[in-house]
């Protein structure tokens, strides 16, 4: 860590994002973006093959394999690991990842590894994700790592190649956007509902060009896993990154993890991390304040994550929208979802429940879902998939007997991966099916061509699995 820049007395109070930025600028030529150093580069099988090919074509090496990690998650089956990968194109992609990592000396947690899992789950659980870092991945949900006070954002494949070759990115600073959430959450209302409410308020493009900093007593009171859920969906509000300044919750989570600093190095790291929070008087380009006490469980009705309502609410009516494109978008969304304006979502029949994804597949998410499922049965017309975010999460769930709770209820407890969040690996909705999903996107066809997604929390998903309809968990006796 570059303490000299971080500790330098500055007259202007800085945000945590500005501090991280300042300590990672390698160079800045006039008329060009800054060259920003990257502390951790996470890679997976889908967005890296063409980048590795660029390195091959140009005779380049991976500059810092020691700051690079690879896993298999997107195209990876969540069926038994004893079975072969049946999809030949998926299998070819996984084979290519093996070859690329071997050829370029990158550590890979492959399909059989005990450390395999969704890229945004394994970084934190292994202690690779640390406060003050710059972290990138060819995946838009990289903001998840912001829960630790890291500046983490998604990049395209060209940039994956840039980072592999130079450990740097050409970047211009984003605007700062303070999102303050204050007060106590009511029972049945979770971190997922907080972020769905934020996105419903600002819209899917509301944070374009910005980095969110989540502040306020509600955020401080969240566990690190809950903070990851909030930061994860920053991109659904249009922001490439979102973060929470580190505190004791962060340090307690990190201490003792595999790649976390040990002994004297730990003490020095914590001392450094304590300098990261935004200074008193730091200013933000934009601000939003949310009263946590007013929040209800949230559910989306439409075809983007900004189309969300409190679970007691009704599907909006296009007749009340004046902008013509906005109106036609709402009409289009309701047509795709086959929903009637003005009707409640509660009670709408569903076919599938998916508990998983980088948003909600950590052990606390599985515990929340299991707390609702325990002693009950999944409704006979519902197919419920529980997909742990990583092998480590899976082992922990098994140690706690959560797998048995899910299986006894009739749910399918699977191997780790992205699974039905983006339906690349064969786990998908059939055309016309409805799901309640703990994932992050309800775009048309996202969970399978013609499939329809209601995004919600693990509690809401589990309650809906029991009743077979969209359900307010607070009403499930």
């Amino acid at each position, binding site marked *: *860590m570059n303490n000299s820049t971080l500790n330098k007395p500055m007259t202007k109070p800085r945000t945590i994002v500005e501090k991280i930025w300042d300590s990672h600028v390698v160079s800045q030529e006039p008329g060009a973006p800054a*060259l920003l150093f990257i502390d951790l580069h996470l890679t997976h099988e889908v967005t890296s093959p063409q980048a590795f090919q660029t390195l091959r074509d140009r005779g380049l090496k991976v500059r810092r394999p020691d700051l690079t990690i690879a896993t298999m998650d997107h195209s990876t089956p969540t069926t038994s690991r004893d079975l072969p990968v049946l999809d030949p194109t998926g299998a070819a992609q996984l084979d290519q990842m093996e070859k690329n990592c071997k050829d370029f000396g990158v550590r890979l947690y492959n399909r059989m590894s005990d450390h395999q899992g969704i890229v945004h789950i394994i970084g934190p659980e292994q202690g690779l994700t640390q406060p003050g870092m710059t972290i990138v991945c060819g995946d838009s949900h990289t903001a998840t790592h912001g829960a630790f006070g890291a500046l983490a954002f998604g990049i395209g494949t060209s940039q994956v190649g840039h980072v592999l070759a130079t450990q740097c990115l050409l970047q211009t600073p984003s605007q700062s956007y303070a999102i303050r959430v204050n007060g106590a959450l009511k029972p049945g209302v979770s971190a997922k509902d907080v972020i769905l409410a934020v996105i419903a308020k600002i819209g899917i493009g509301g944070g374009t060009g910005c980095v969110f900093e989540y502040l306020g007593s509600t955020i401080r009171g969240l566990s690190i896993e809950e903070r990851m859920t909030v930061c994860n969906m920053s991109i659904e509000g249009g922001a490439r990154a979102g973060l929470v300044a580190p505190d004791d919750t962060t340090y307690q989570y990190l201490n003792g993890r595999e790649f976390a600093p040990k002994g004297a190095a730990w003490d020095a790291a914590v001392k450094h991390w304590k300098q990261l929070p935004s200074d008193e008087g730091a200013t933000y380009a934009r601000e939003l304040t949310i009263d946590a006490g007013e929040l209800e469980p949230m559910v989306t009705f439409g075809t983007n994550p900004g189309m969300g309502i409190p679970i007691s609410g009704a599907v909006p009516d296009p007749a009340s929208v004046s902008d013509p494109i906005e109106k036609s978008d709402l009409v289009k969304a309701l047509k795709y979802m086959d929903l009637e304006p003005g009707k409640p979502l509660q009670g709408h029949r569903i076919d599938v429940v998916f508990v998983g994804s980088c948003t909600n597949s950590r052990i606390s998410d599985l515990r929340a879902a299991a707390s609702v499922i325990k002693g009950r049965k999944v409704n006979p017309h519902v197919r419920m998939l529980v997909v742990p975010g990583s092998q480590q999460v899976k082992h922990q769930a098994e140690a706690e007997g959560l797998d048995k709770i899910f299986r006894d209820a009739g749910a399918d407890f699977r191997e780790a991966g992205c699974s039905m969040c983006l339906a690349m690996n064969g786990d998908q909705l059939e055309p016309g099916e409805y799901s309640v999903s703990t994932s992050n996107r309800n775009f048309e066809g996202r969970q399978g061509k013609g499939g329809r997604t209601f995004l919600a929390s693990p509690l809401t998903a589990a309650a809906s699995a029991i009743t077979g309809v969209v359900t307010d968990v607070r009403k499930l006796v």
Partner: protein
Amino acid sequence: MKFEKLESKIVVLPVDNIDTDQIIPARYLKAITMDGLGEGLFVDWRKNADGTLKPDFPLNKPENKGAQILVTGDNFGCGSSREHAPWALVQNGIRAVVSTSFADIFKGNALKNGLLPVVVPTDIHKQLIASPGMKVAIDLAGQTLTLAGGPSVDFPIDSFAKRCMLDGVDELGYMLQQESAIAAFETRHPASIDTLA
């Protein structure tokens, strides 16, 4: 891919918040090269379940064949970071997308592939949306978009990205030239992890 001037009729897709899952669905992302991604462009909007083309989808209409400028609703390219989205557009001959705003990651990815994201004011946007097939000229050096027989508007673009597109500057090559600065930074910025340990 270099970009200087472009003159083309426009194809209009008047939908806000078009996400990258619509531009190219995830099932096309299992490719390990860039080949053939063009087939996935808007495929679920473009084709019926039996694989036949939907005749009313703008990109399928015969009069729009050869159009190089796509005009869309606000916040184009939101969602996933997949660079497959601009790859698929470019493989279908699209060289510029015109909207009132673009999602950050898509915009960056587009600029790296010779696909120009052009942000125009709302009034001009409305005029374009209402004029499918209109001839439009884009001049990157002058940063202007000119409607057929109509007004000309300036559009913003990052100066470095502009230079890269105009001169065909290779960004990775530019970064590699800064080797000594990177090496110097690395010595004063010790790593806090070692994934190979």
